């Protein structure tokens, strides 16, 4: 499903950008294998300057592997990677891309201020230390040892460090994992305030609500591929669709293609499973113009839709798996 071209909410920010500017992120056919495991399996992604993109997917979807590649921390197995029109390593060296990692990356015996000062000394040119401390909301704890900071404070420290080179692209890998509600809110307030200045932001998350609240565009990944790509509103609309199930011996997916509002058709034996935004139209079609029987309409919860979209096998298989796991 590619809804990128029709997505209105992020198109304006693309137009603001001067013509010919290189995409902030351009991944094409990206693969990353670890032995026989295909962590990333043919992933395509283009992020234009100024976009705030959520990289959404369950654990093990390939989010971190993709981020490692686009930051130059690991080499892709195949495909091409271009960050701000150059290689990841060159983009890092130029201070064009920086990242807030999930955990680690801090020295416990340093203070907050010293950590930022040290990081600043590694770049040829940076924003002043006090400016980034203030912008990350940690100016008041500059003298505190990192070991004594809460998870949320440490995360805002990582954010301050990432702001130092004034990067074009800011990458956040599951930035709020392990934070309490208050810390999460303060962290996102700082990010949102910063993104308002026109910075490109790509953040990985497995929280649907977080993607919904803070991104212009959601890229849903599963099994190392992009399975959905659209605005928050569009993905939300997808999530609130309904499923129509019916028994129809000899059914082919093409039989339902003409029905309005059909998003996806899956056939398993004599059973057809239709995901649709207009379930009434599908039911009417099935009952009046087809030999189908046993028609069931079920509404899909937010989480159901997320699981359905991000599971590489068929929807039927997903349901079975979920049921089995619940039964244990």
């Amino acid at each position: 499903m590619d809804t990128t071209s029709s997505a209105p909410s992020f198109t304006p920010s693309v137009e603001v950008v001067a013509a010919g500017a290189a995409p902030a992120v351009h991944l094409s056919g990206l693969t990353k294998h670890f032995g026989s495991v295909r962590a990333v399996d043919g992933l395509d992604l283009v992020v234009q300057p100024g976009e705030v993109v959520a990289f959404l997917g369950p654990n093990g979807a390939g989010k971190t592997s993709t981020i490692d590649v686009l930051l130059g921390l690991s080499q892709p197995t195949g495909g091409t990677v271009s960050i701000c029109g150059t290689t990841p390593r060159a983009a890092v060296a130029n201070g064009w891309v920086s990242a807030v990692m999930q955990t680690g990356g801090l020295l416990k015996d340093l203070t907050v201020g010293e950590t930022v000062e040290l990081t600043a000394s590694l770049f040829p040119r940076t924003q002043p230390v006090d400016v980034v401390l203030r912008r990350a909301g940690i100016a008041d704890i500059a003298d505190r040892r990192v070991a004594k900071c809460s998870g949320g404070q440490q995360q805002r420290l990582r954010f301050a460090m990432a702001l130092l080179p004034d990067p074009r692209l800011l990458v956040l890998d599951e930035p709020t994992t392990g934070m309490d509600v208050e810390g999460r809110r303060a962290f996102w307030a700082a990010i949102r305030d910063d993104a308002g200045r026109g910075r490109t932001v790509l953040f990985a998350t497995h929280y649907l609500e977080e993607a919904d609240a803070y991104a212009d565009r959601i890229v849903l990944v599963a099994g190392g591929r992009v399975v959905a790509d659209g605005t928050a509103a569009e993905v939300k609309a997808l999530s609130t669709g309904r499923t129509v199930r019916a028994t129809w011996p000899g059914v082919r997916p093409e039989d339902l293609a003409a029905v309005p509002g059909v998003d996806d058709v899956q056939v398993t034996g004599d059973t057809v499973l239709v995901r649709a935004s207009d379930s009434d139209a599908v039911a009417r079609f099935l009952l009046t113009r087809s030999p189908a029987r046993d028609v069931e309409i079920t509404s899909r919860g937010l989480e159901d839709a997320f699981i359905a979209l991000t599971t590489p096998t068929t929807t039927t298989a997903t349901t079975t798996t979920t049921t089995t796991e619940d039964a244990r």
Partner: protein
Amino acid sequence: MTTTLQRPAGTEVPRAVLNPTYLRLDVRRVLRNRRTVVFTLVMPVAFYFAFGVSQETGADRAYAMLSFAVYGAMVAATSVGASVAVERAGGWSRQLRLTPLRPVTYVATKVVAAAVVAVVPVAVQLLLGAVTGARAPVRAWVVGGVLAWLGSLVFAAFGLAMGYLLPSENTMQVLGPVLALFAMLGGLFVPLDFFSPTLQTVASFTPAYGVGVLAHHVLTGSGAVLGAVVNVVAWTVVFVAASALLFRRDTQRV
């Protein structure tokens, strides 16, 4: 897009091999770590009080003073080198890879930090010797102190290599006993004359032997200087090569 962002005039940093800010903060960080301070300062001082002050002659006290100066310096240098293990375990090395920092700058800063920190136990030991009646010609103090300090840099490379080899937060707990063994075989705790001839031969191939002989040489006028120099150079080459090899393996694996 960058034009919409404010880019205030920041600080320009020359791309020198050594990063003074990193050096200053790294040294401060080491001295802030209580465990490191205990191992590099408190323990050698305690050893000197236990085994050095009780010596009968001022010359013997000076001998013990230089021994424990070497010991303190080698522990200090190893600690700083081995701190890369903590930095790797804690993801700091990975964080550094998101900056333009060059590996050569990182390693050079570590080695210089080790040298700076190693000055402290040597200075403390010489001062302590002076106030507890160690007697030696001025030349023996100066040359002995400087060689104890410089020779300990072999152990900065040793610490680095071990830091890349052992993926642990507790590298120094492993290396502490190893260093004590090296110090023993290097004749720093007991003069080598007390060892059997066979053990003396074996000892002369261990990493602390060369530094120990060189630091004591001006005081005692004895010891095979050439052999000691060969020992120091050989171990430096071994540890630097091991560090380089393990460093390369580390950055490839990520």
